[in-house]
C-alpha cells in the first residue's frame, strides 16, 4: 500500500515539474474562479444577514389602531394564523415597538429623544408580525382584513397593513443580479480552469506516451495509468482552492473587520461564514479537476 502511494506521489511530482508553466496557469485560473465563487457565496450570506436584521424575517406587519384591545389581538391572531399562506403570527406591543425603535436608532439621539416610551404618549403602534409560508399569497392576508391597496383596512381594530415584501423584492432583485453576475464570471473562470487542467493532463499523457504504451503492453491496468494524472489535476485545483480560501480570509479581514461596530445593527459575515464556504470551494475544485481529468484522457487510453 505504502509502495503504491510512493509510486503515485513520484508520478505526480514529476508530472508537475515537467509542465510547470501550464500547471501554474491551471492553478491560477482555478484560484481566481474559486475566489469569485467564494465571493458570490459570501455576498449572498451577507445579504441574507442584512435582510434578517432589517425585517426580523417578518414579511407583513399589521398595525393595530389605539387603544389596543387584547380580545381583538387574540381574535385577529387566530384569524390570520388559520390562513394557509401564513406560517406564524407574533404580537408586538406598543412598549416592545418603542424599545426596539430606541435600540435601532440609538446612534441618532435626536430621533430617540423625540419619542417617549411612556404608555400615555407612546406614538408607536402595536402590531401583528406575520411570517408568510407562501409569500406570493400575500393577498389572502389583505383580503381577510379587508385592506385596500393603499394599506388602510376595513377590519375594526386594524389601522394599516404594511407589506415588507416590496422592500425585500427590491433588495433581492439587486442582490440577485449581483450574485448571478459574480457566479457567471466564476463559472466562466471554472470552465477556463477545467480546460487548462485538461490540457496539463493531455500534455502529460503526450509527453509520456511511450511509457504509457509500455505500461499497457506489460499489463498495467488503466486505473494504474490514469490515477497519477487525475491526482495531478486534483492537486492543481486544490492548491487553487487553498489560495482562494486564504484570499477570502484576507479580503474579509481587510474590508469587513473595519466595519464591525461602525454601522449599528448591521451584522457582518464572520470568520465562521468564511469557513462555511470552504467545503463548497473544495468540492467545486475537485469536481472541476476530475471532469477535466477524464475529458483530457478521453480516447487516450482505449485498449
Amino acid at each position, binding site marked *: 500500500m505504502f*509502495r*503504491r502511494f510512493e*509510486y503515485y506521489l513520484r508520478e505526480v511530482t514529476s508530472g508537475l515539474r515537467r509542465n510547470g508553466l501550464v500547471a501554474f496557469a491551471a492553478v491560477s485560473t482555478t484560484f481566481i474562479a474559486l475566489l469569485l465563487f467564494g465571493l458570490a457565496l459570501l455576498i449572498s450570506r451577507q445579504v441574507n444577514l442584512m435582510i434578517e436584521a432589517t425585517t426580523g424575517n417578518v414579511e407583513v406587519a399589521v398595525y393595530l389602531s389605539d387603544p389596543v384591545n387584547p380580545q381583538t389581538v387574540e381574535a385577529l391572531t387566530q384569524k390570520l394564523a388559520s390562513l394557509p399562506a401564513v406560517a406564524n403570527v407574533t404580537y408586538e406591543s406598543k412598549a416592545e415597538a418603542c424599545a426596539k425603535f430606541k435600540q435601532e436608532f440609538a446612534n441618532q439621539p435626536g430621533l430617540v429623544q423625540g419619542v417617549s416610551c411612556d404608555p400615555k404618549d407612546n406614538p408607536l403602534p402595536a402590531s401583528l408580525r406575520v411570517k408568510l409560508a407562501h409569500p406570493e399569497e400575500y393577498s389572502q392576508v389583505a383580503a381577510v382584513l379587508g385592506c385596500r391597496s393603499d394599506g388602510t383596512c376595513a377590519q375594526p381594530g386594524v389601522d394599516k397593513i404594511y407589506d415588507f415584501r416590496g422592500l425585500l423584492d427590491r433588495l433581492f432583485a439587486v442582490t440577485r443580479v449581483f450574485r448571478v453576475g459574480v457566479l457567471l464570471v466564476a463559472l466562466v473562470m471554472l470552465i477556463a480552469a477545467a480546460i487548462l487542467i485538461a490540457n496539463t493532463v493531455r500534455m502529460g499523457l503526450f509527453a509520456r506516451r*511511450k*511509457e504509457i*504504451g*509500455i*505500461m*499497457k*503492453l*506489460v*499489463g*498495467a*491496468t*488503466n486505473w*494504474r*495509468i490514469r490515477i497519477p494524472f487525475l491526482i495531478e489535476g486534483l492537486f492543481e485545483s486544490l492548491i487553487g482552492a487553498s489560495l482562494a480560501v486564504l484570499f477570502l480570509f484576507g479580503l474579509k479581514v481587510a474590508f469587513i473587520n473595519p466595519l464591525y461596530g461602525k454601522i449599528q445593527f448591521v451584522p457582518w459575515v464572520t470568520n465562521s461564514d468564511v469557513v462555511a464556504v470552504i467545503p463548497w470551494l473544495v468540492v467545486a475544485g475537485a469536481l472541476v479537476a476530475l471532469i477535466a481529468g477524464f475529458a483530457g484522457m478521453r480516447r487516450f487510453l482505449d*485498449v
Partner: protein
Amino acid sequence: MISLQHVTKIYKNSVVALDDVSVEIEKGEFVFIVGASGSGKSTFIRLLLKEEEATKGDIYVAGKNLAKLTPWKVPYLRRNIGTVFQDFKLLQDKTVFDNVGFALEVIGKPKHVIDQRVPEILELVGLGDKINNSPDELSGGEQQRVSIARACVNRPLLLLADEPTGNLDPTTSVDIMRLLDRVNRIGTTVVMATHDQAIVDAMRRRVIELDAGKVIRDQSRGVYS
C-alpha cells in the same frame, strides 16, 4: 496455448490484413510467422495481445476467448504475455534495472520481488554487469536483451516477438536467437514474426507463412521459403 479459428481482420480503411486464418499453437512451441511486409504478420501479433479485435472468427489465448474478454481484463491477459519489438521500446531516462523493474512495478509487484527478480533475469540475459547503465550506453543487441529481460521478468506463458532482429546485424541476431531459444526451452511458448531468412533456416522450427493475409504454408521444422 493459441488457437485461431477462421480469423479475418479487416481494418477500417477496408484493408484485409488476415483472411480466414486458422492456426493452432501448442504450449512450449517455437513458431516463426514469415511473409513479406504487409502479409499480416504484425496484425497476427496484435490480435493475440488484443490490441486489435478480429472482424470474424475466434481467437483463444491461454484458454481465454479474446472476443469475450472485457476491456478491464485485458491487462491481466497481457501479464501472461511478454512482448519484444524491433525498436526495443526502452525508456531512455531509466537505467537498465529500472526499465526491467518498471514492468513489475506497474502491475503492483512489491519491491522485494523486483529487487530479487530483476538482477536474476538480467544475469540470465547476460547483462549482469550493466544493471545501472542507461539504455543509450548499450549496443543494439544489448538493448534488445534488456527488452527480452523485461518481457520475461514476470514469467509469461507466451512470448511474442515482432521482428526482434530487424535492427540488428547478423552476428548479434544469432545471439538474440540463442537467447529466445533458451527462453523457449524453459517452457515459454514463443511466436516470432520475422522476414530474416538466415535465422529461420538456421533454427529449423515450425514456420507459418502468410501471404496477403492467408496461411499459404504451415510446416514443422521448416525453412523460410
